């Protein structure tokens, strides 16, 4: 049965994810950041279903484990789409949305194909290993794409404070998760830490996005030169 930790993590996680959508609606930004809000709604829904499975089958059951990792892969794809939404938003004035969409689909298929090829070589339980491998690789691709997006924003001298904070928070989140998945693949001795580390790291993104939607007005601007570590 779940202990107090699982209850707290579930409750806080769901509450924070729902808060992002509520804050975004309250500040009139729901449609502007539609893909981010759809991701947060999906994450809240998945959290509720995960908890139902946790209560029914238990924390260490294979049912919970399978659902956790399969739903995590789907959420990673949804987050990848949210990132593409940010790309479209940044490049909307250039009219490059269709190229971004095409590139995103190709990259997603490429990552899935690469993950499958890697898993096929060393594993007999292809499907369950594919889910883990694809999640790790997608987090890493997401991280690289966020890094590229941030580089483009610096180059384009993007000044929208809220957009900057949304992208940077996403970069932080992808980095933490890509590192965690890679560490899990590297060392199985961390299996005891894993079920605790990942859900707690999951608070990062909704927390930062709630702050960005609630505290930062849409028209707030900052000088991009203030963000570069090397003064320009």
């Amino acid at each position, binding site marked *: 049965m779940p202990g107090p930790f699982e209850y707290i993590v579930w409750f806080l996680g769901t509450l924070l994810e729902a808060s992002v959508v509520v804050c975004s609606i309250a500040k009139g930004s729901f449609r502007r950041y539609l893909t981010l809000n759809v991701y947060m709604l999906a994450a809240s829904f998945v959290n509720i279903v995960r908890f139902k499975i946790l209560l029914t089958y238990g924390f260490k059951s294979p049912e919970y484990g399978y659902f956790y990792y399969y739903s995590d892969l789907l959420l990673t794809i949804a987050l990848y789409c949210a990132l593409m939404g940010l790309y479209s938003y940044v490049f909307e004035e250039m009219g490059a949305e269709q190229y971004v969409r095409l590139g995103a689909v190709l990259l997603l298929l490429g990552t899935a194909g690469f993950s499958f090829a*890697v898993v096929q070589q060393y594993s007999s339980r292809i499907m369950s290993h594919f889910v883990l491998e694809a999640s*790790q*690789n997608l987090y*890493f691709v997401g*991280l690289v794409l*966020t*890094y590229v997006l*941030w580089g483009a924003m610096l180059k384009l001298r993007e000044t929208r*404070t809220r957009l*900057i*904070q949304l992208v*940077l*928070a996403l*970069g*932080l989140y992808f*980095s*933490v998760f*890509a*590192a965690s*998945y*890679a*560490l899990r*693949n*590297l060392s199985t001795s961390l299996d005891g830490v894993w079920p605790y580390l990942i859900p707690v790291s999951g608070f990062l993104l909704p*927390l*930062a996005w*709630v*702050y960005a939607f*609630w*505290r*930062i007005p849409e028209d*707030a601007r*900052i*000088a991009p030169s*203030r*963000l570069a*570590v090397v*003064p320009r």
Partner: protein
Amino acid sequence: MMAAFIFVCSIVTLLQFFVWYCRSLIAASAKEALSPEVRDVTGIARAASGEDFTRVMQLLQLCPERPEDRGSIQAVGTYFGLLNFVRATLARMVPSMRAWTESERGSCAYFAAVALERRIAFSRGMLAQQMES
């Protein structure tokens, strides 16, 4: 091999995104002017210095918390710790780093002073609400 590569890259980018994120938080508050009252309380007469940070954080802890500020204050507190570490290690060998860390530490102190200003306004708002009801 692949996992090790991803792990190293992720840690490096994590550090970079963390620094950028904290700098964006600090930059967003840098435009806000401090009231004379907060300047008096914090002792920040003109530009804030890194030495002010600990004192301002202690003052912050005396005020009722605003939930929406908690995460950003913790993030900047961690960034300040990172800067202290860089100042004690790398900056000793690279003199230009020393000036940079000093200026960043001052920005962190200013961010904390702006957060203090908001918390004071928040406490006053709560008090006014209680008086009315």
